[in-house]
């Protein structure tokens, strides 16, 4: 009888193993490095307001304040709408006028190294100032923003609480403070866990029964993603981005010229008085500025754009820096059928047409859709008391 039970148990075990998906050691390693989620985070040393609850409140107020634009009609949330994964659903952003690039969502932005499609921002706070000043977005100025903060009792009170002093006389200094408060708020926007995260954690500990809950199509797509698709080389790590810039063969022609991407981004960064090499960096002499100081400007940067995160990607259509691809299926087709001649001669040797079958393409889309959060991780907005 005992022998019979043991044999039955053995058979059951063999049957479970036969049904369970099998992953090689290399595949397991590649999958596990896309977690854990949420990833650990530490406050931004270049921003003394980072992680400060008072700064988060001020930043949230400013984020939804149309007075940051002299028109009174455009606010940060015009393009970064909370109900659209903090973007706008348009191919190209439209503030006071249409711009040349797609709006990136703000979820998980705290994990990024560079900001904007061209990385012209080396901190979230400097990047937060850029659309305020851009004529086609909010069309503001340092003087107008500083006058607003100084003149509004509520904003001035909150500024004093965050920075320990009233808004200073120098307009640019107030603008930098506004950027830092906006950044402190955006750092709180973290996406929730996804079906992929549940699978990844189960795989990491060999929990076969939990692994089986992850749809088979998503598992096949994941295998392509970390395997022959080479997608995870750039869409690396828990945030699914290596934080750098690549030419992926997306045309960069715009009305009346070309979008130079990272090439112009580096020049804009160096010319920006709010960059990390300037006097507004609260980590003066620290390590935060090394990336900016040691940045290399290469010819190949022309036409390179930042690798976006893929978390919640199914909710942030349309895609690519210019919003030219409407669906995830179109994005997969782009990489499946891409023209390698479109890439720079001195660009990546990594990108080749994947030549995926219809089934494989659908599997890859199923995997990308599994990166959608199960539930929002954001705390509900609470009523904010007047500042005293």
């Amino acid at each position: 009888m005992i022998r019979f039970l043991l044999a039955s148990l053995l058979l059951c075990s063999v049957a479970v193993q036969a049904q369970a998906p099998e992953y090689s050691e290399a595949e397991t390693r590649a999958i596990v490095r896309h977690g854990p989620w949420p990833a650990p985070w530490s406050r931004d040393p270049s921003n003394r307001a980072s992680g400060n609850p008072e700064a988060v409140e001020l930043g949230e107020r400013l984020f939804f304040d149309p007075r940051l634009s002299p028109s009174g009609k455009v606010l940060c949330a015009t393009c970064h709408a909370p109900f659209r994964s903090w973007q706008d659903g348009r191919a190209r952003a439209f503030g006071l006028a249409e711009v040349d690039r797609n709006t990136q969502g703000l979820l998980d932005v705290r994990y990024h190294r560079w900001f904007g499609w061209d990385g012209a921002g080396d901190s979230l706070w400097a990047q937060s100032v850029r659309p305020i000043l851009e004529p086609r977005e909010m069309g503001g100025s340092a003087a107008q923003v500083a006058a607003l903060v100084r003149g509004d009792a509520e904003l001035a009170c909150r500024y004093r609480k965050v920075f320990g002093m009233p808004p200073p006389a120098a307009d640019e200094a107030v603008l930098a403070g506004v950027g830092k408060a906006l950044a402190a708020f955006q750092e709180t926007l973290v996406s929730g866990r996804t079906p992929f995260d549940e699978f990844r954690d189960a795989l990491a500990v060999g929990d076969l029964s939990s692994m089986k809950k992850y749809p088979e199509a998503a598992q096949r797509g994941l295998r392509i993603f970390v395997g022959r698709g080479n997608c995870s080389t750039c869409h690396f790590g828990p945030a699914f981005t290596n934080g750098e810039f690549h030419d992926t063969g997306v045309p960069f022609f715009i009305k009346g010229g070309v979008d130079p991407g990272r090439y112009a981004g580096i020049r804009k960064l160096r010319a920006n008085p709010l960059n990390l090499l300037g006097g507004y960096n609260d980590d003066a002499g620290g390590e935060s500025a090394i990336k900016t100081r040691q940045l290399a400007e290469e010819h190949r940067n022309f036409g390179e754009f930042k690798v976006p995160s893929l978390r919640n990607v199914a909710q942030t259509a349309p895609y690519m820096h210019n919003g030219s691809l409407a669906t995830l299926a179109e994005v997969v087709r782009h990489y499946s059928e891409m023209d390698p001649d479109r890439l720079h001669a001195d660009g990546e040797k990594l990108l080749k047409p994947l030549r995926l079958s219809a089934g494989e393409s659908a599997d890859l889309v199923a995997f990308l859709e599994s990166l959608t959060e199960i539930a929002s991780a954001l705390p509900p907005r609470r009523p904010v008391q007047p500042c005293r």
Partner: protein
Amino acid sequence: MEKRRNHFRRIAGVLSLLGGLSSGGAAFGCDLPPGTRVESGRLAISYWTIPANIAVGKPFALELAACPKQSGVAMERVKFDARMPEHGHGMNYRTKVVSLGPGRFHSEGWLFHMPGRWEFVFDLGAERLTHSVQVE
């Protein structure tokens, strides 16, 4: 006759010592600190990264100690870099190298932005030493 033989033995001994100095680092006192050791015919180096493990997308620093295995190896022009030979590109950053004293260097600005095989390239004067690492 015996005197003459001893004289030749002494000359042979001196020549042997000189030969050792020009071909073997040890004879030049190449007692390098622990690290990854790489050698060319004329130079031995030991390098280590800070932190010790290189993670994709995370900045790191690198220190290097160099020791000439021959006389006349100048290290005035020092440049450190890295590349991904299979991908046809290097880093997106240029490292800054600071001398810490004779044959000792500290460099910062390192960041490997992709997983895969990276090749360190150390140019010290006319000498180029390379070493590959797999980064996960």
